[in-house]
């Protein structure tokens, strides 16, 4: 093989740009789609499968170009650059209009792959006469381009810019390189330059045609809610909304709702019951054992509302709050409304905020050092969140409890929707209990009857009598006079698998519950604001 010359450099470069853009388009679409609808494994796998199929079909299709010329390669690379820039706007539009119609992202990826699949065969055939390019070297360069694009996308651009702007930066950079190459080779083909100009402008028109959403959906009203805070962080999209006069029960009070990735974290008018059940019931239980809690650990709960409740407990001396997303803590410390709700809990000297991944942090925390552990994670709607409800996680958390300590876990929706009589626990809550049982810990479930939130509580103290305790504080269901929380000992329990890191069925259970409840992944109209940036 001879040393590559200017022509070979041109062919290698175009091939690298084209293949890189094709691969990037696939990663962008897969990432955006799985961020919007969870189900990461399914979406990444399906997209990868169709990308490979289209690469193969494209490779076969390339043989129909009987006399390949440089312009054939140039046209395809220009198309791929433009298509990569169009991928996210097209996907956003299709999700808003059609919802989770997975033929659309598959179609986008298919087109990328079909064109990208023609690149290598055409490049080699263009080189046939000179024999200056080698197949292994071409594969090597194309694979290197893939890793470069992915590295830049994932580690450099995605967090600060989000999906849309990242796709534009990378696609237009490729465009620029392609045009430079065409100029340096004195490309005189006018239709090709015309196509390049069109390709440059189309994504711009597509973006201008889709103005960024300004409002969010109303909580229980068809009227949209005003967005008073919005931020896409490294981990999630945080949105705080405000409505006035839309709630018939509170016509004069503002109603503010915090969403994380489109899922509600708290509603200012209704959050007290949830946080009372989650945080105060285990405090009462510890008091019942004459072991009032002194040291507490909160995992998640970055809105500061659990900390607020615990700071009202006289015996509490110290709270460690572990939260993954520093932007969430920043919001809770600086946004005036959230500060009003959490009563500046994070400014209290008793509260020590730790920015860390809870899973890593609990592995190194001091054993038997907490009287109370409150687990307030978002619902396990993704694999990443489902891990925080796993046996392995609980095996690390449990040793942190003192002998008369209590663990309280937010456990998703309480009822199985298939049972209209409401005698059956949901698979999500059952899985939390069974997963705790898999590391040898018995647990009890109680719930907020209005919002249908379930909580699972456990203690290492072997003689704790949940029936007697709940009767004493008035939340036992048969004699309940409390409206916020109820405890029932007899439930029908569905068949579920233990949530270990090797199985993680919880996400599937939760997403199924969402489907039965009417679907949660809606992005039409004002719901479009919940789409990833």
């Amino acid at each position, binding site marked *: 093989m001879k040393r590559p010359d200017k022509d070979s450099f041109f062919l290698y470069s175009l091939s690298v740009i084209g293949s890189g853009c094709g691969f990037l388009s696939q990663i962008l679409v897969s990432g955006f789609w799985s961020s919007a609808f969870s189900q990461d494994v399914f979406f990444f796998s399906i997209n990868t499968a169709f990308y*490979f199929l289209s690469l193969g079909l494209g490779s076969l299709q390339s043989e129909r170009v009987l006399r390949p010329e440089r312009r054939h390669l140039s046209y395809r690379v220009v198309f791929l650059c433009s298509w990569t820039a169009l991928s996210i706007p097209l996907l956003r539009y299709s999700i808003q209009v059609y919802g989770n119609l997975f033929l659309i992202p598959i179609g986008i990826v298919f087109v990328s792959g079909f064109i990208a699949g023609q690149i290598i065969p055409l490049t080699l055939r263009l080189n046939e006469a000179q024999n200056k390019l080698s197949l292994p070297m071409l594969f090597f360069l194309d694979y290197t381009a893939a890793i470069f694009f992915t590295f830049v996308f994932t580690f450099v651009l995605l967090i600060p810019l989000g999906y849309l702007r990242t796709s534009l930066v990378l696609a237009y950079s490729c465009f620029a390189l392609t045009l430079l190459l065409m100029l340096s080779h004195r490309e005189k083909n006018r239709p090709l330059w015309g196509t390049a100009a069109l390709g440059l402008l189309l994504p711009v028109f597509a973006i201008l045609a889709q103005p960024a959403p300004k409002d969010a959906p109303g909580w229980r009203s068809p009227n949209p809610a005003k967005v008073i805070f919005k931020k896409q962080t490294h981990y999630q999209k945080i949105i705080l909304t405000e409505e006035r006069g839309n709630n018939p029960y509170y016509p004069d009070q503002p109603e503010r709702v915090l969403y994380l990735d489109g899922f509600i974290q708290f509603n200012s008018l209704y959050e007290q019951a949830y946080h009372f059940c989650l945080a105060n019931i285990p405090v009462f239980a510890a008091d019942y054992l004459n072991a009032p809690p002194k040291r507490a650990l909160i995992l998640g709960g970055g809105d500061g509302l659990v900390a607020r409740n615990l700071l009202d407990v006289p015996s509490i001396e110290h709270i460690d709050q572990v939260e993954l997303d520093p932007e969430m803590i920043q919001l809770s410390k600086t946004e005036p409304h959230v500060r009003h709700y959490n009563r500046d809990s994070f400014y209290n000297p008793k509260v020590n905020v730790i920015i860390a991944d809870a899973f890593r942090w609990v592995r190194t925390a001091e054993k038997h050092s907490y009287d109370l552990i409150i687990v307030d994670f978002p619902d396990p709607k993704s694999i990443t969140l489902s891990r925080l409800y796993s046996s392995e996680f609980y095996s690390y958390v449990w040793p942190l409890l003192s002998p008369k300590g209590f663990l309280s876990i937010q456990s998703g929706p309480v009822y199985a929707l298939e049972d209209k009589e409401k005698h059956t626990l949901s698979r999500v809550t059952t899985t939390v209990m069974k997963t705790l049982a898999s590391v040898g810990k018995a647990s009890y479930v109680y719930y907020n009857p209005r919002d249908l939130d379930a909580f699972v509580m456990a203690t290492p103290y072997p003689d704790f009598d949940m029936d007697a305790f709940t009767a004493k504080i008035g939340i036992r269901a048969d004699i309940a006079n409390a409206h916020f929380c109820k405890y029932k000992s007899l439930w029908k329990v569905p068949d579920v698998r233990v949530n270990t890191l090797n199985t993680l069925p919880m996400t599937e259970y939760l997403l199924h519950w969402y489907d039965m409840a009417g679907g949660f992944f809606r992005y039409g109209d004002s719901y479009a604001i919940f789409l990833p940036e």
Partner: protein
Amino acid sequence: MQSAQLKTHREPPPPSETKAHVWVLYLGAGIAAFTAIAYELLLASYATFLLGASIFQYSFVLSLMMASMGMGALATRRKRFSSLEQFLGVEVLLSWLAAAAIPTLYAAFASTVPPHLVLLFFVVGIGVGIGMEIPLLNDMHLSGQGLSKILFYDYFGGFVGGLFFPVLLLPELGFFRLGAVLAVVNAALGLVVTVVYRKELRNRFKFWLGLTLITIALAASGLYFAEALRRYMEWEFFKIYKVL
């Protein structure tokens, strides 16, 4: 005299390529791609399960594996062994790596060993092997005209693997058994190629036959004991036991 004998001694002409050879090459490309995409998704998905951050894990694994595939493709230019024997060696190596990957990652996660280092080892190792497969198959194709067809079967096999992974393979088998199944598939491919190309292997045939048979046996026993191994490791590292 000896040198005269050496000069007059000629290598027998290579056996001609039969239909069986050609079909084994094409199916081999398809099966190799099937297992390749399954490996990529297996490692990326398992990394997500263990470590979270799906976009990061998929990007990390897919791109690093593609780069390793490129290195593997380049490595085939060295011709110390024949393409056929290199291919068989790759299939055996992939089988062992596939069988070991998931349990090793789980053990690393439970220990103080950084799981990403272990992941890096398996991604690069498997990626290099995968990257060698298609160029070697292409070299083994004597007629030299079938690159497009080999690429087609390669991509089609990747499609089937990617499609079946989330809807059938992972839900039905789980991670431990799936790794073992893929190990069996690669070993079986090695065995089939060994048998079909026995004339080309000449006096090396018995060696490769024995090696691929041993590898299949080990992979199959890994498959048989996969779930028991998973439960044993969950108990050993985290005291997780089966709840009835």
